């Protein structure tokens, strides 16, 4: 049996084209520091001037969000932008050890992918999308690359609170099995410190990730942060949460254009659940995708303001 050579893997990505939209999807592994990063590029007809890097969440949140991100990328490409999705080292199809996954490696991967896609397609502008902890990564990468626009889907603002929510998901699952006990939350954090890893609903939360993320927060008002921000809030409430309002205020005070949308829909990011709904029945997702894509596709000229 003939097998592809190593060179062929890099040079000839798997590719398919949507006959209706002309959007071409190319998938390959991108070598970074000896590890392959799984990357999926959505290319429009014609040469794109803007590349959008989509930074995913982690754990089961990435499985929940994967299809949305894929549809968003297709929508962006249909509007003439190039969109790239990828798996951080240590996650998904990518190489790398989950134990080594940290906010720093995630940011490094996002920056690496951004550099490569800009040079590969000849884009003159970069934009970012980030969901949950990926919002963190996207915000940092956007600042580093001075990207003008960023869209954030239910971003993690306070990482300490985020990990508490994640641990709570494990405790609630244990409760359902009659296994929860008093002080369970602190016990799990102690275990994380002791053994280096805890199991949250079948996914490891490792010390490297936890410690690298602690005490960090997204700030949209600092010097190199994007000038234009779209913040989408998930959750049942239509009122904007305080943490997002504060973050938005920080951005506005420093002259940024910040738009907040509350979807009014609940997403149980970390729960393994039996009931789920077919894609076609999720109208709010279609609205989310179209709105985000059209916002990113706006040819926003800072000089004109």
């Amino acid at each position, binding site marked *: 049996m003939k097998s592809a050579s190593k060179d062929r*893997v890099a040079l000839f990505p798997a590719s*398919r084209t949507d006959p209706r939209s002309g959007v071409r999807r190319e998938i390959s*592994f991108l070598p970074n520091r000896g590890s392959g990063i799984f990357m999926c590029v959505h290319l429009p007809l014609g040469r794109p001037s803007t590349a959008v890097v989509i930074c995913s969440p982690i754990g089961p949140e990435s499985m929940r969000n994967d299809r949305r991100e894929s549809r968003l990328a297709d929508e962006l490409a249909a509007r003439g932008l190039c969109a790239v999705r990828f798996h951080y080292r240590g996650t998904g*199809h990518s190489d790398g050890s989950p134990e080594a996954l940290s906010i720093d490696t995630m940011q490094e991967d996002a920056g690496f992918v951004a550099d490569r896609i800009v040079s590969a397609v000849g884009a003159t502008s970069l934009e970012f999308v980030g969901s949950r902890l990926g919002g963190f990564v996207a915000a940092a990468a956007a600042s580093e690359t001075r990207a003008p626009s960023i869209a954030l889907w239910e971003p993690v603002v306070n990482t300490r609170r985020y990990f508490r929510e994640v641990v709570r998901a494990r405790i609630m699952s244990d409760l359902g099995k009659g296994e929860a006990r008093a002080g369970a939350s602190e016990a799990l954090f102690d275990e994380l410190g002791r053994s280096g890893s805890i199991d949250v609903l*079948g*996914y490891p939360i490792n010390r490297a990730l936890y410690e690298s993320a602690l005490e960090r927060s997204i700030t949209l008002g600092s010097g190199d942060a994007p000038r234009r921000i779209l913040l989408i809030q998930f959750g049942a409430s239509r009122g904007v949460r305080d943490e997002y309002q504060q973050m938005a205020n920080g951005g506005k005070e420093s002259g940024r254009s910040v738009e907040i949308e509350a979807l009014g829909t609940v997403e149980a990011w970390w729960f393994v659940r039996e009931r*789920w709904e*077919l*894609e076609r029945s999720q109208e709010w997702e279609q609205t989310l995708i179209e709105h985000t894509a059209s916002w990113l596709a706006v040819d926003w000229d800072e000089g004109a303001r």
Partner: protein
Amino acid sequence: MRKEPSTQDPVSRRDASSIDETPAFFTAGAETLFGILTRPVADPVGTALIALPGGGYIPSTHRNRMWVRLCRAAAAEGMHAIRFDYHGVGESTGAIHRYRLDEPFVDDLMGAVYWLEALGIDRFIAVGTCFGARTSLSAAHLISGLRGLVLISCPVQDFGEGEKASTHLAAQWSLGRYLRAALRPQVIKGLFDSRRRRSYRRLAGAKLRTLARPAGRNGSAAGSASPLFLQPLSLLVERGIPVLFVYGTDDMAYEAFRRALDGELGKLVARSASRIQVETVPGLLDGFPQIEAQERCLTVVREWIAIRRL
């Protein structure tokens, strides 16, 4: 059971990685599916492992990269391996209209098989979880080069999306118990909540379906295995193809499997001359919400495949 010796010095054996993998698109029916082929990193044995995820839009990585790990481990044993996204999932085209265990995605699996055959591979071991297990079981008779089947947390009854718990209860609870539950104050209060009403309808519907199907007719009676599970399994027994069932001890599907052993399934297992094996791991494999159970499951599967890959 005697383990076949590896042809490669274990010291020099290395794990597969992305450098040994080829992402690819292949056709399956009217759709274009995405898969990743892992090439062997030991002396090739000419057998491919096909890894099928469960339902519910689970991509080809599976939960916590289980399929990535399994495919790369299979490559270290000299096997080719493919993990792929069903239509409507991940990088594949199409849309899913519904998930039902009696309507598995046979076309998707056969697309992968035909693609591998076109690459010159003609021996296969399929590994599927839950919906993926039923898909591989339903397609087995179409795969002439099938050398083994691993069915993880495989439901023996048929149900659709969102009906797992209600189907399980329908088999467990008597009608009297249903009626007593319905009269509880919190249940009556729940009638005023639309989400709870939908749950109650599902529960009631599942029970009514079991009552409407008397034992012995086409369609499974409460507690017995579906003919759509038994018939393909029976064909595998006739072909002499080994089958490994792996369950978590806490899986609802395991409970249903054990009940079904009292009926036709038990006779089939007895007839199989030990070609049907059943292994359990402590905890839950359904949905794979426990890392330890995932690891134990993968170990069981790897050991079984290592013997049967040749």
